[in-house]
C-alpha cells in the first residue's frame, strides 16, 4: 500500500537544524522576558537553617527571590511514568515546600532578574546556612539497611518475578556460573540542558518546555497547581535530546510557572550543565548478581538475577533489570529480585535502555562465561536457548532473534573465530571479538493516542498530534505515515506537533513513540481518506459513483478504482464540486490490553571488535555491527541513525560513563562534561547497522516496535566479551576502568 513509509527520506526539519533556524525552548522570545536562576543545596541531608536573601535582593535587576518561606504550597506529587498518561513528576517530593534538604542540588531558592547575568550573579549572593545531617549516598553506606522492593516504576511493575524451583534446580545443575557486577551511576547529558519558559495571561498558563512529553508537562503542572488542564498549554517545537532526562517532569518546570506568576512577567528558567547532574534524574548506582545453572550440553535450567540499587528517600525507584533475563531464554526455573537502599539522591529515572541496558549486560556476560566454560560457540549457545514463548507461555508478537544473530554474524565475520583468549595480536594491541543478544520490552501501558488530519481542497494536508521532536525523526516519519494514509505525495503533507492544544499523545519514552503516534496518525489519515472516498461513491457526479469503497484506492491525491486506474478523480475535484473548502477527521488508537496473550520484546544482536593495550589498560572499539528486528521501519535513514546512536551509548556505558558520589559530602564527583566522559568523535568507530524485517500484527496497526533503546542494549556485553577474548580478563564493573583491564 505504501510508498513513503520505509523510504530513507531526509529529515523534514533538516534545513531548520543546519541553518540554526530551529528554535529550542530557551530560544523562545517573549516581550518583557525575565530570567530565573536556581540556588541549589550544597549539602545532601539536613535543613535550611538560615537563608539570607538580603544582599541578593539588593542586587541590580533582581525582581524576586523565592524560598521555602514564600513558595506557595502545592498538591502532593506522586511518581508515575509519563507513558501512563497521568501527572508524571519525576519524584514524590517537591522542593522548597519546607526547610528540609534531601539531596545535594535540591533547589532551595529561585532568583528572578531582568537579565541572565544578573539572575546568576544574584543567585551567588544568596547566603544559605545549613544544619547538616548524616547522609547516605552510596550503596556501601546503606547496604545494611537494604530492603526488598514490592513494586517498581511508581507501582506499575512487580519487583519480583519467579517461576519453578530455582534453588533445587540450581543445586542440581551440571554447570553453574555465578557472577556479580558493579555499575557507577550514569547521567543522560543531553546537549541541551533542560529549560522552561512560563508566561501567564489572564489566569491561563503557557509553558515552553524542553520535554519528551508536552502532555506530561501539562498534566503535572496542572495537578501540582490545582488548575484545570484547559488552562495549561505546553508548547515545544525542538528538544535538544532527552534520553530519559526529559521523560518525567522535574520541579524546575513548576518552579518556572510559579515564578512567572509571582513576577507577572514571562520567566525563562535554564538549568546549568552542572545543575543537570542533580535536576533531572540519573541511572542509579547499582550492583547485580546473576547465577545460571545449565546442563553440559548448554541448556539453561535455572537462573537467579538480583539487583541492588540506591534510590531516593521518597520513592521505591529502580530501573527494572529482569524484564529480558526472565524471558529471552527458555529456562524453567527463574527468580528475579530488586532490592533497594534509601539514600540522599533525587529519585533516579529512566536512562536510555532503562533497566535492560544494564540487566542485559549482566545476562549476556554470564552467557559468554557459560559458553566459554562449556566450549560452545557463544552465538550457538544463544540460539540453542532462545525461548519460543515468553515467561507466561505466550508466543512472541514477532521474533527475529535468530535471524538477527545469524545475519549479524555474517556481516561481522564471526564464523571461524578462534575462541581462545589472547589469541590475536596487532602490534602491541591485543585484539578480541565479542557478541551479545539484545532484547527490549515493548511497553503498551499508554492510554488512547489521538491525531487529526485535515485536507484542503487544493490537495495539501496538515496532520497533527501533540508530540515533540527531540531527535527521533518523528516529524519526518509521521509525515511519511500521513502521506501514505491519505494517498498523497510527501510534499503535500505537513505534520504538525509540539502543542498540547493538538490531539494528545503520550510522552515519547521507552521506544514507544513511533509505534503509538504512527498508530494515531495512520488512523486519522485513513479515516479522512475513507470519508472522502465515501463522499465520492455517494456523489452522482463522481466517476466513482456507486463503486464499492473496498475497490477504491488513493494515490498521489487521485481517487481511483484499483482495477480501472483510468476511472477516478482527484481529491481537489471531488471537494470543489461538493463545496468542501477542507475536510477533517480525527483518528485514535487504543493499545491492546495489558494481558494480551503475546510475548512483547524487540530483538537484536550486537557484535564488537576491540583492541586492548594491556600495558595501560586502554580499550578501543574498532568496529561494531548491530542487527535489529524492530518490526516495521518507518524511515530507515533516521532509524539507522538512532540505532547507531544507541550503539555508541553502549560503548560509552562500557568504557567511559560513570559518576560516583563522594560520601564525605554526599555530592557527585563529576558535574561537567569534562569530568563525566561521554563518547566523542574519536571514540566512535564505524558502526554497521542492518535490519531483519518482520511483520508484527499485535503491537500496533503498522507493526512498529521502536528503535530508541534496542540499539544500546547488549553493546556493553559485546564489548566486555571482546575484552575478555582479547585479554582473558573479565571486567566486572562498568565503566571498565583501565586498572581492571591492564595486565
Amino acid at each position: 500500500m505504501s510508498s513513503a513509509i520505509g523510504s530513507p527520506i531526509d529529515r523534514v526539519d533538516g534545513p531548520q537544524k543546519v541553518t540554526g533556524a530551529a528554535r529550542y525552548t530557551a530560544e523562545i522570545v517573549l516581550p518583557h522576558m525575565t530570567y530565573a536562576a536556581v540556588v541549589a543545596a550544597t549539602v545532601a541531608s539536613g535543613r535550611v537553617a538560615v537563608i539570607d536573601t538580603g544582599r541578593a535582593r539588593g542586587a541590580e535587576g533582581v525582581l524576586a527571590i523565592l524560598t521555602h518561606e514564600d513558595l506557595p504550597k502545592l498538591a502532593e506529587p506522586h511518581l508515575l511514568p509519563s507513558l501512563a498518561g497521568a501527572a508524571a513528576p519525576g519524584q514524590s517530593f517537591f522542593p522548597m515546600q519546607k526547610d528540609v534538604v534531601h539531596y545535594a542540588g535540591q533547589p532551595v531558592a529561585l532568583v528572578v532578574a531582568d537579565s541572565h547575568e544578573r539572575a546568576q550573579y544574584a543567585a551567588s549572593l544568596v547566603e544559605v546556612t545549613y544544619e547538616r545531617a548524616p547522609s547516605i549516598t552510596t550503596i556501601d553506606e546503606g547496604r545494611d539497611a537494604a530492603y526488598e522492593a514490592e513494586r517498581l516504576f511508581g507501582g506499575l511493575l512487580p519487583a519480583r518475578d519467579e517461576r519453578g524451583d530455582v534453588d533445587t534446580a540450581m543445586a542440581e545443575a551440571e554447570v553453574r556460573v555465578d557472577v556479580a557486577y558493579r555499575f557507577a551511576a550514569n547521567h543522560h547529558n543531553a546537549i541541551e540542558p533542560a529549560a522552561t519558559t512560563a508566561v501567564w495571561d489572564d489566569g491561563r498558563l503557557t509553558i515552553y518546555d524542553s520535554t519528551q512529553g508536552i502532555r506530561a508537562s501539562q498534566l503535572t503542572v496542572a495537578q501540582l497547581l490545582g488548575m484545570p488542564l484547559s488552562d495549561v498549554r505546553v508548547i515545544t517545537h525542538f528538544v535538544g535530546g532527552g534520553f530519559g532526562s526529559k521523560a518525567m517532569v522535574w520541579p524546575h518546570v513548576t518552579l518556572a510557572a510559579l515564578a512567572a506568576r509571582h513576577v507577572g512577567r514571562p520567566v525563562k528558567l535554564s538549568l546549568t550543565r552542572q545543575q543537570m547532574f542533580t535536576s533531572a534524574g540519573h541511572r542509579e548506582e547499582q550492583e547485580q548478581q546473576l547465577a545460571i545453572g545449565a546442563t553440559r550440553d548448554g541448556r539453561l535450567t535455572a537462573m537467579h538475577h538480583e539487583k541492588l540499587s540506591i534510590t531516593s528517600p521518597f520513592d521505591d525507584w529502580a530501573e527494572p533489570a529482569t524484564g529480558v533475563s526472565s524471558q529471552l531464554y527458555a529456562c524453567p526455573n527463574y527468580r528475579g529480585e530488586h532490592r533497594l537502599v534509601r539514600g540522599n539522591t533525587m529519585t533516579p529515572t529512566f536512562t536510555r535502555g532503562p533497566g535492560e541496558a544494564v540487566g542485559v549486560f549482566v545476562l549476556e556476560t554470564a552467557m559468554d562465561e557459560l559458553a566459554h566454560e562449556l566450549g560452545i560457540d557463544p552465538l550457538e549457545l544463544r540460539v540453542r536457548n532462545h525461548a519460543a514463548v515468553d515467561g507466561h507461555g505466550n508466543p512472541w508478537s514477532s521474533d527475529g532473534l535468530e535471524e538477527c544473530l545469524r545475519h549479524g554474524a555474517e556481516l561481522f565475520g564471526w564464523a571461524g573465530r578462534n575462541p581462545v583468549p589472547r589469541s590475536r595480536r596487532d602490534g602491541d594491541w591485543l585484539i578480541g571479538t565479542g557478541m551479545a543478544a539484545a532484547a527490549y520490552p515493548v511497553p503498551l501501558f499508554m492510554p488512547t493516542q489521538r491525531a487529526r488530519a485535515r485536507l484542503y481542497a487544493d490537495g495539501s494536508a496538515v496532520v497533527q498530534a501533540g508530540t515533540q521532536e527531540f531527535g527521533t525523526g518523528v516529524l519526518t516519519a509521521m509525515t511519511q505515515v500521513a502521506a501514505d494514509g491519505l494517498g498523497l505525495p510527501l510534499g503535500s503533507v505537513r505534520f504538525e506537533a509540539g502543542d498540547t492544544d493538538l490531539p494528545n499523545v503520550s510522552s515519547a519514552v521507552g521506544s514507544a513513540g513511533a509505534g503509538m503516534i504512527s498508530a494515531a496518525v495512520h488512523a486519522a489519515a485513513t479515516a479522512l481518506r475513507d470519508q472522502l472516498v465515501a463522499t465520492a461513491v455517494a456523489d452522482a457526479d463522481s466517476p466513482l459513483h456507486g463503486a464499492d469503497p473496498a475497490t477504491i484506492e488513493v494515490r498521489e491525491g487521485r481517487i481511483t478504482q484499483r482495477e480501472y486506474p483510468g476511472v477516478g478523480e482527484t481529491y481537489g475535484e471531488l471537494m470543489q464540486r461538493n463545496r468542501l473548502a477542507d475536510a477533517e477527521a480525527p483518528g485514535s488508537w487504543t493499545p491492546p490490553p495489558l494481558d494480551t496473550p503475546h510475548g512483547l520484546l524487540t530483538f537484536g544482536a550486537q557484535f564488537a571488535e576491540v583492541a586492548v593495550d594491556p600495558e595501560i589498560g586502554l580499550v578501543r572499539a574498532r568496529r561494531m555491527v548491530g542487527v535489529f528486528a524492530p518490526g516495521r521501519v518507518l524511515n530507515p535513514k533516521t532509524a539507522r541513525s538512532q540505532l547507531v546512536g544507541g550503539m555508541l551509548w553502549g560503548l560509552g556505558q562500557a568504557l567511559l560513563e560513570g559518576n560516583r558520589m563522594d560520601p564525605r559530602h554526599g555530592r557527585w564527583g563529576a558535574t561537567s562534561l569534562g569530568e563525566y566522559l561521554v563518547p566523542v568523535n574519536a571514540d566512535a568507530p564505524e558502526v554497521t547497522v542492518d535490519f531483519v524485517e518482520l511483520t508484527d500484527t499485535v503491537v500496533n496497526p503498522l507493526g512498529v516496535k521502536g528503535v530508541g533503546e534496542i540499539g544500546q542494549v547488549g553493546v556493553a556485553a559485546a564489548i566486555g566479551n571482546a575484552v575478555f577474548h582479547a585479554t582473558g580478563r573479565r571486567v566486572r564493573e562498568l565503566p571498565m576502568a583501565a586498572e581492571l583491564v591492564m595486565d
Partner: protein
Amino acid sequence: MPAWAVQLIAHHVRPKIMHNDQFVATAPPDRPPLTSGPSSLPVALTVNGSTHVVDLEPRVSLLDALREHLDLTGSKKGCDQGTCGACTVWVDGRRVLACLSLAVTCEGRSVTTIEGLAAGEELHPMQRAFIECDAFQCGYCTAGQIMSAVALLEEGNATTDAEIAESMSGNICRCAAYPNIRAAIREVRDAGEGGHRATA
C-alpha cells in the same frame, strides 16, 4: 589532547577529589555589599557582516550576547563551560568557543555564526551534506559541528578519517551522529567544496 588520553587520565584519577568545597555556607564575612554588577556599555559587534551596537555588561559572554541580545540563537549553549563545542563560532575566521569568550573582546573583530553560513536560500555544501548524511538527530550540537567542520577543511585538517575524528572531538554529539558527521565532512572534502569562502 587525544580522546584516548583524556579517557585514560580520567580513569586514573578515580576516585574523584571534590574541588568545590563549599558545602556549608557560612555567614557573610564583613565586606562591603557588592550588589551591583559591572555596568553596561555600548559594544559594537560585527556578526555575519552586519554591525550591531548593543549595551552589554562586560561579563556577558559572546554566546549570551548572540543568543540573548542579538536574537541569533543558532549558536547553542550546551554547557557554558567550554566542554561541549555547541557554541562554536568563528572570530576572524578562527574557531572559538563563544561561551568562553567575552563579548567585549570581540569588538572590532568579525564574528561568523551558523546563521551567516548559507548564501541566502542556498545552503553551504556542509549544511547540505549534513542533511544528506543524516549527521544529526536532535540538532542541538549541529551548529557547532558545522562551524567546526567547515573550519577544519579550511585548515586542511581533514585528510584522513582519523584526523577528522580527532579534530572534531571538541564537538560532543550526545545523539552520537559521529560516523555520519565524518561522512558529511568526507563528502564535502571529496567534492572539493570545503572552506569558509565556499559561498562568500
